[in-house]
């Protein structure tokens, strides 16, 4: 499994019928559960494309490598603002690296 949802941060995108992460997931693997929080179904079906973490307005989702592939806890979060994306990489020792990339020209 590689998508982790922080349930204390996730608000299921409030009153939206469908949360933003669930709207874009190419495998349709995210849904709102009965507590109005997002959850992952069939986690083994996740491609690791990171679409969900880019859509989340509260940075409540992160991706990690599955343990099978040598995952040791590093995690990626992303924040999309305007035509930019800001990535936050957390490494196993807790240190962080930030990447700020312009992805759309005005």
């Amino acid at each position, binding site marked *: 499994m590689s998508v982790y949802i922080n349930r204390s941060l996730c608000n299921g995108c409030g009153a939206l019928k469908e949360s933003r992460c669930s709207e874009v997931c190419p495998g349709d693997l995210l849904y709102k559960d009965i507590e109005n929080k997002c959850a992952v179904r069939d986690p083994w079906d996740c*491609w690791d494309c*990171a679409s969900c973490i880019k859509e989340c307005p509260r940075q409540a989702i992160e991706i990690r490598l599955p343990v*099978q592939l040598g995952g040791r806890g*590093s995690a990626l979060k992303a924040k999309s603002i305007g035509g930019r994306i800001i*990535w936050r990489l957390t490494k196993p020792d807790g240190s962080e690296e930030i990447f700020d990339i312009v*992805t759309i020209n005005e």
Partner: protein
Amino acid sequence: MIETGAEGTRECVEKLRSEVKIVRVNVDIVIVGGGTAGCFAAVSAKEASPNTSVLVIEKAHIKRSGCLASGVNAINAYLNPGETPQSYLEYVKRDSAGLVREDLVLTIGQRLNRVTEKLESWGLPFIKDEFGRYKARGKRNVEIVGEAIKPIIAKAVEESGVTVLNRTAATNYIVKDGRVAGVFAFSAREKTFYIISSKAVICASGGAAGIYRPNNGSSARHKMWYCPFNVGTGLAMGLRAGAEMTTFEMRFIALRIKDVISPTGTVAQGASARQINALGEAYQKRYENNSTPVRTYAVVEENKAGRGPCYLDFTHLPESENRRLKEAYLNMSPGMVLKWADEETEPNGKAVEVCTSEPYIVGGHGQAGYWVDEYRESTVKGLFAAGDVAGGAPKKYVTGCFAEGEIAAQTALEYIKMIKTNSETEVCGDENLDRELARVFGPLYRTAGANPDEYEDRLQKIMDEYAGGISTNYELCEPKLIAARKMLVLLQQDVERRLMARDLHELVKAHEVIDRILVARVLVEHLLYRKETRWRSYQERADYPGRDDQQWFKFVNSVYDSSKDLIKIIERPGKAGVLS
């Protein structure tokens, strides 16, 4: 509940008719798949003819669907200064052991640069050199910041006035009097069945992953290179409608970074990495040439000879390049950045191990797909194909898919001028509707059987072990292929009777496995028929290891007869499409 095996009955159909909402839609052009080729076709059609109604049906959501969901970091098909459509054709032909559809490759080549410039005009950032030109990464490749490529394309679709039906999966074409007159589809969100009638259909649903057992198992099975949600539905739909397919036997096996199966071009071309084996040798020179299939084959052979693993070594890079490489992977395959972090290394810290992927059926890299003419018309009237689902023109990548989308749109616009509007009921009678309704929703109503994942496992095991998967070093031989043929027929019969889905999400997966099995069956026939080895590893006959140019400079094509469940192989001359 409906008894297993009772799906066709009156009682079942009545139940379905009362429980499933049936929605009829009528448009001029339907596009199956809102990915790279489909979106470009949609925009092209609307720009050329604003009064034509264009509908895209997309299984996921066009903002992040298909191959481009995560982003890309180069345009792999662009003619840098000095290159021409003709030189592009010569390269593709050489790389494919001489056999390609020249007309298709050339018509792609003629459009590559124009479609690339269009992508830039939509807002995609291109990296420029000191002359303000696109920064070249080799002869036919330019660097981009491609993280947002799919949202950018989706926005262009939105602004063009095209209608999009997201979370709607196409299941079959509506065929009327020998022409394709629309598409059946169902919603992944509510029990809704769509009958979409149209004057023309463009298929752009991508290639097929998950036919073979993938590199990683169980919890990581979808950590693959190709989009795991592209499963060959468009191919299966075409087969069921009698469309001719070509060259399924030229599978595509990717050379990728171990475990995360990330693309290698970023470091191979983008950081001039050395390809070395475990002994530190530059092993590639041991092999006949440096074509794409032979680069895969070389890694397989080095491993067989005990000289593996193989690596891409870019430890010569200065520290200053580390960040650039991480950004490049974040823009396309972020798992690679997690891998470096988990291994507590920087990109230049150690060579990365490479592996070879499971075989994919993908016309944008290999040649498997619809047999189309120069105008991207399939052998069935009213049906056009573009992108990874169309065959005969390998190495088309993003911009080649755009080019084909544009051509298909232009042809479809010409074609629909000759078609008078049909009323929807005329296009799809009750009997037709009931049959497809029962076929599509049947798995939801079964009470005994197995779920889609179980059948997918079975399919992948058969293909891996008997039809040249990873575990057999991709090698093929007749007795095993014949065994695969028989097992696949049984599997298809089981699936028709016993495949169960508990909800709409599983119903989507159920149809994915149904379609993959048909694609696999046709693939096995192609693999059996080509009695030579033309494309190393992609189509490696252990029983016919040599190339036979006298007999075998030809295309292996297939047609499926769904009423008799028969796959027929047809030969087409190797010079089909050769430009005089």
